[in-house]
């Protein structure tokens, strides 16, 4: 009986393995300390941007990517990666508003930190929401 259960379990888990990439990245992200994971001085800018890219791709898939003042996090990551490669101290983020191209400027290190924290926070929020969203529903968790 025990071995049978084990076999079932293994079979179950291995099929799960294919379908839980989402869940893996989500639970990975949930465990991260954003301040550490996105610290440019401690990890180096390339590593921070790689972390950003890894988690943001998942945020895009789940439809929870952040966007701030016209700039998507994908845009942050792309532009900042180019600036880091070119050893530029400043990034110029371009975005469109009412058909016109506009820009934001900021320090490259800061942009890297932001893109990384945005990527991870988007996923962490998604995990947190699983246990919090009902707290806002009248007739369910919301008391007044």
């Amino acid at each position: 009986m025990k071995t049978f259960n084990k076999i079932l379990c293994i079979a179950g888990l291995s099929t799960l393995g294919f379908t839980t990439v989402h869940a893996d990245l989500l639970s990975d992200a949930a465990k991260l300390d954003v301040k550490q994971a996105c610290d440019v001085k401690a990890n180096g800018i390339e590593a921070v941007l790689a972390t950003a890219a890894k988690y943001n791709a998942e945020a895009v898939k789940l439809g929870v990517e952040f966007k701030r003042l016209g700039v998507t996090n994908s845009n942050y990551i792309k532009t900042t990666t180019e600036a880091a490669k070119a050893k530029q101290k400043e990034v110029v983020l371009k975005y469109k508003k009412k058909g016109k191209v506009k820009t934001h400027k900021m320090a490259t290190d800061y942009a890297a930190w932001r893109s990384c924290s945005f990527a991870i926070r988007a996923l962490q929020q998604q995990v947190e929401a699983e246990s919090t969203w009902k707290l806002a529903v009248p007739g369910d968790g919301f008391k007044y």
Partner: protein
Amino acid sequence: MLLKVVKISALVAISACTLNAGSFDTQAEKDRQALVKYMEAKFSNPEKNKSFFPYSTEDELKRVIKKGVKAADLAKGSYAYDSIGREQYDDINEMPPYEDAIDEGEVLYGKKFANGKTFKECFPKTDIAGDYPYFDNKKKEVVTLTQAINDCLVANGEKKWNIKKGNMAKLEAYFSHQSKEAGKKVAIKIDSKEAAQAYENGKKAYYTQRGYLKLSCATCHVQGTGKRVRKEYMSPLLGHTTHFPVFRLKWGNLGTLERRLEGCNKDEGENPHKGSSKWAKEVLYFMSYMSNGLGIDGPDIRK
């Protein structure tokens, strides 16, 4: 004896199934009633129930925010309780800036496609604003009025319209106007397991905090209803879908519910979902169900 058992169990099975068929909307109906109760409690007496309005002054609660507002009034959005905003609203509505759009919508409705057919083939009736979105049990997806209009265009060899403004808003203004004239109400159905799931998805999305600002739609339109953001009082989820399309002074033209949804989603600090996405359609399905039973009241104006 055995036959009897079989018969009885068959009967039980059948009645269980029919019972089920009628109960796919049980949860949604509970949610809707709880929302009505909450909103009516909030506005029963703002001066007394200050805890609902933590940022308002005494004076504001006394002079500006109306009391005894009922669910049916909330189709007017924040103008149901913001008496100053309501005055401005009534002024503008003396010469509503959307009237031409209704006429233009009527023309679009009757205008021939290149193949000689018209929208009448897809929409034999025009008082239909309250029947959308519906869940298509064959396609297994939510169909909004906007989508149905574009599907009709494509089926007739025409190009899709922009879902935010222009022709789409005009035709929808016509449908909404016709529905209002006919006294139609929001009448959203949830008639299958999949439909109930789509509703649940929409509800969860609505109450989920998102974006770098970590806000949910509910932060502003459920808990936040009646709170002030600069000069504007935030409107309630209840009644949000009854009056679209709207002419917004900020836009300077008529826009669809999808346009508003994208704007608010962006304001949460999220890369906004397209109005035609599964996400947006399910959110709209949930929102519309919450307004079930309220009168169609569009098109309308907003700041």
